[in-house]
């Protein structure tokens, strides 16, 4: 990196976050889903949430970009297309920090099972595809607790892109990665952008201990698998309703 070339095409994240055993200074647990748009992750997390909810577990669901805190700034930036890769990334990090400090951390300390639709890996994959330095991004989000399970939903690019393009009349400017100037055609730009993001996700499978989920498997089958993995990796009893344990056996 002696020469100053913008690593716009950077698709690698060369910092293997060497299996740093996550510190768990809290009784709660964190399960996150990651994957490109159209990979089926939100559907699966929703079903997982319903399952736990119906049985009365202490859970909380949280999703990316839901904080009212930076909404006006994000809207302003997006509408007027003022965001650069750096400010785009920082604004989302500020938003995430707000949710992390005011929601996720207190809930983990309070003994909740927290379910997150998208987490820091979304930023790593997406912002690196925009040209941000992976090392800089890792530092930026270093305050975030490491998940207990990270489900990575992977669907072939065509499958995922078609799911999105078919369902949405018009892709938004930043969503389609139009700010990168890859292509003037929105669908084409979106496709290439998603391809880069997918490659960045793939790089993290090992370093960040992703649990790989095949997004092409039938919804109910995949959900069964997801519930099974959660049951194995998380001590669900900790989050079970206190009064009666009557139906716990039926789970899974």
């Amino acid at each position: 990196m002696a020469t100053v070339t913008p690593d716009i095409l950077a698709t690698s994240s060369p910092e293997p976050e060497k299996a740093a055993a996550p510190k768990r200074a809290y009784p709660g647990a964190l399960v996150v889903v990651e994957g490109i748009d159209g990979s089926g992750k939100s559907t699966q997390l929703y079903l997982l949430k319903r399952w736990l909810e119906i049985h009365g577990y202490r859970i909380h669901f949280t999703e990316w970009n839901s904080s009212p805190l930076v909404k006006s700034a994000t809207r302003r930036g997006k509408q007027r297309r003022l965001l650069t890769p750096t400010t785009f990334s920082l604004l989302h990090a500020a938003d995430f920090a707000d949710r992390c400090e005011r929601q996720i951390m207190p809930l983990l300390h309070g003994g909740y099972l927290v379910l997150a639709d998208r987490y820091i890996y979304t930023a790593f994959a997406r912002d690196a595809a925009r040209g941000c330095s992976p090392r800089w991004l890792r530092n930026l989000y270093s305050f975030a607790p490491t998940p207990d399970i990270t489900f990575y939903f992977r669907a072939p690019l065509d499958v995922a892109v078609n799911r999105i393009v078919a369902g949405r009349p018009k892709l938004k400017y930043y969503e389609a990665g139009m700010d990168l100037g890859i292509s003037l055609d929105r669908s084409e730009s979106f496709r290439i952008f998603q391809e880069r993001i997918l490659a960045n996700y793939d790089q993290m499978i090992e370093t960040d201990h992703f649990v790989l989920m095949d997004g092409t498997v039938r919804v109910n089958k995949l959900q069964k698998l997801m519930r099974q993995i959660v049951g194995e990796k998380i001590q669900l009893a900790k989050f079970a309703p206190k009064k009666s344990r009557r139906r716990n056996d039926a789970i899974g």
Partner: protein
Amino acid sequence: MTPSDKNRSEQSAATQGEIAAPSNGRPRKKAKKKKGTAASDVTSRFYGIPLPGVNLEELSGSLIVLEGSDGSGRSTQIALLTEWLESEGFAVQTMGLRRSFLVGEDIDSLMAENAVTRTTLALMYSTDFFDQLERRILPALRSGLVVLADRYIFTLIARSAVRGMSRDYLHGIYEMALRPDLTFWLNVKPEIAFDREFKKAHTISYWESGRDMSLSNDLFQSFIRYQSMMKKEFEYLSKRHGFVEVDGEGSVSEVNRVIRKRIAAHLGIQRTHYQPSHALMQVWR
């Protein structure tokens, strides 16, 4: 979970994050030499990773930073320096905290609400900073302007550091910042700053007295303690980054003369005599 340190070693020495890890060998002074030697300084104009998409060779302007607490006289000096530079034929662009179009107002309202946590606030400020850097300062420097910054990353780092955030973390965020050509630190005792601020506003602001930190219920005590912590942080930053320390307790004209002299040397201005206009004479005293 701070992988940044490990990976820093992968970077070549030229781009190593100097704010985070003080440079070994490369003389800090180099970056402060007069223009013309810029070509060899290309890699050192950022602290670490360069900001994506910046061609440093295009940056022909100068970035001059004034740091110092509230009541240190920064704004007065910037007003005077702007006039002086313009009278010498230099075009000036200014920047300051919370002045970005993107999030400037949002930070104002966040701070008014008191609901914001330290990391979020720090990141909103960094968004504000980089928005101004990318969309105001860099274009100005490309056009050969002199940019006068009313505070810079140092205040932002210090504020978060005294609130207990990791210095490495903060330096990591700002390693993509442009290194100033000159950084002046207007150093004043907290007591003097208190007098000046009180005279100006007849009260002391919530944030400038660090009231979010629960230091003391007495506003004066809180202000002094907070500003003393900031001062200590600045002493450390000053050594690390080679600030030009100016005794901010001197008179406006004395302080101005000292700063002018350094800037004149940097920009190659021969004549440093300057008589402020009538409009500015009121702040001169």
